């Protein structure tokens, strides 16, 4: 029988490692922690440069609402071009094969 009252599961011990009060960058390879100024409606990731609109659940709990579209669109365009994206797009047929 696999019942052991004193044993904590992996899930339970992992909870102890959590942190509170900041947001994580939504760029998945970055995931840097961002600490916005209290009440700020925007925040920029100090690590990767992505910019976000913020929502405050309460005065001490910020949450990312979404990207700052114009800023991040420019970042995306430059990145795509830098990775040879324009050439890839030309070679692509639109949609199907």
């Amino acid at each position, binding site marked *: 029988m696999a019942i052991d009252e004193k044993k904590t599961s992996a899930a339970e011990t992992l909870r102890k490692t959590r942190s509170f009060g900041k947001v994580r960058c*939504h760029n998945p390879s970055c995931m840097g922690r961002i600490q916005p100024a209290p009440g700020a409606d925007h925040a920029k990731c100090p690590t990767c440069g992505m910019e976000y609109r913020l929502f405050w659940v309460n005065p001490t709990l910020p949450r990312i609402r979404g990207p700052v579209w114009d800023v991040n669109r420019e970042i995306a365009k430059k990145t795509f071009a830098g990775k040879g*994206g324009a050439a890839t797009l030309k070679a692509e047929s639109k949609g199907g094969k």
Partner: protein
Amino acid sequence: MALDRKIAFIDLTNGEIQIKPIPISMRKKYLGGRGLDAYLLYNYSKKGVDPLSPDNPLIVSGGILTATCASATARTHVMAKSPLTGLLGSTNMGGFFAPELAWAGFHHLVIKGKAEKPVYLYIHNGNIEIRDAGKLWGKTTTETQWAIREELGDDEIKSLVIGPAGENLVRFANVMTGIKNSGGRTGMGCVMGSKNLKAIAARGTMDIRIAHAQEAFEYNKRFIDQITSAKVNQTQGALGTPFIWGATNCWGGLRTRNFQFNQLEYADDIEPERLDEIATETVGPHHMTGCFACQVHCRGQYRIPSGPYAGKYDEGPEYTSQGAFGAEPGCTSAVTVLTGNHLVNQFGMDNLETGSMIAWAMELYEAGILTEKETDGLDLRFGNDEALLEMVERICYRKGWLGDTLADGGIPAAEKIGKNAFDYLIQVKGMNNLHSDERATPALALNVATSSRGSDHLRSRPAIDLYHLPEDVLRRIYSNPIPYKGPLSSEHTSYEGKPWMVYWQENCYMAVDCLGICKYHTTFLGATLPNFEDWPKVIYYNTGLEFTSEEIWTIAERCNMIERMFNLREGLARNDLKKGDTLNHRYFDEPCRRGAPDVIGLSIDRGKFNKMLDEFYEYKGLDKNGKPKPATLKRLGLENEPSRSL
């Protein structure tokens, strides 16, 4: 006690009903819920059965823990051969139906045959009646449930129903319970419609004796603590699944305009916070609600704020409705999303498939493959909100050439439309993909390619792969209960170790579906939620059955394998674009071009994908073609199936 719930075999053609106990030996092999359903489908259907024929068994169930003292045992599972894919049909929904069915004395129903005229089943305290549903036919899903309650004079009745889409044999029609709890995938509502079965109503007051009640209550407190302290569940309780949509769109993981893009830009009006504002304005601050025995409360309530359906009440929208009526058709209006969600809920139609089919038609229209002749004059360009909602209704009622064509599902529709329409269809095994874009996440791509019911995120998705958890944390999760010493990578773009993660999740989700609990209560969106280590106690305290974590893992393997055996029998082949474990060419050929810098330019490497698939097959005990090795069948005790031992 939970284990004395029965199984009923119901033949709608001749009205015969057989009620049997479920032997403990079957519980030990399959637990219950989806796992036992898979056994029943494999055993009680013949190879090549027409999904819409009376011989296709429709199986409805709760899990082994349903309505016990365990948390979130709300899930109802429905299985049959799918009229959408021709393979495994399987769908799972929350709400209150399965517990009511258990209190009425049953855990599993196997429904065969076809009634001469519309009927519904009424199940109450060990009895099953087949009743006339003539007056219910044509009603929406909500109207049907209220009409049954009125007819039987009991507002506590919980019903599983189809709407007009199921009656019209739309191949992706839902089974629904409550306002929005949907068994959406693989067209189980269509199977009900083909049997002239409008609804299954349940009402029960039969106690379920808990094997070790005090311990079960005490242990469930620990469970609840784990569930409610997870941040992901706290956010779900505030915003529902739209919060996942918002985050996914933020970084560029969202299928947009039929997979042409991976992000819906300037989507502020359908972001979760905006939907939350609308719900607050139209329903009130406490607009989140939940399913039976759940502490998460992820289901929003709202009224449509404006437009032709202004004031109509509904629930949700879920991530999939934001995708179906937002990103996929390229629409950015909250009213459109909320209205589309309302229509599919009332019609009883899968939101995911509906939105995907319309978005596919939109791209075909923009590419000139469909013209105004086929659309009956409808301007079907992306971003046309009115055309989108019009098409929802046309599909449900099979209006016009295009509505009728799309109602038959992607692959038949592609064949009817011709040209290269199929190349634009983003599907796996005949079912459209979730509205997420997996080109930057190889693990998730492998998950959708190999899911047993067609492209799906709820069968094996290692969603926590996106959290970049440290490798030692991943190892603690993924090395339990079976030791795993191979590679694991925290990097979501890596192909290393991902097949094991997908395999582990496949077994985890199968176990959850056998128990009858919700996936928000396990390692799906949160790394700190219960899994194999935690379940033996819950099962023991509630049912008295003793399992080790390793035994539960093996049961999950067995149940997944029998689903695989069903699919192989019905034609699954590894590289078949229509019935295989592979992906649309866009995954491999077209890179992501929006979103976060690290996502841009990524696509799936075909060679590496195939290596992942090989490795995944190895873990499952399959050969290179995806067929089970004899030793695997023997190890899992499946070498003599179908055995018809129930």
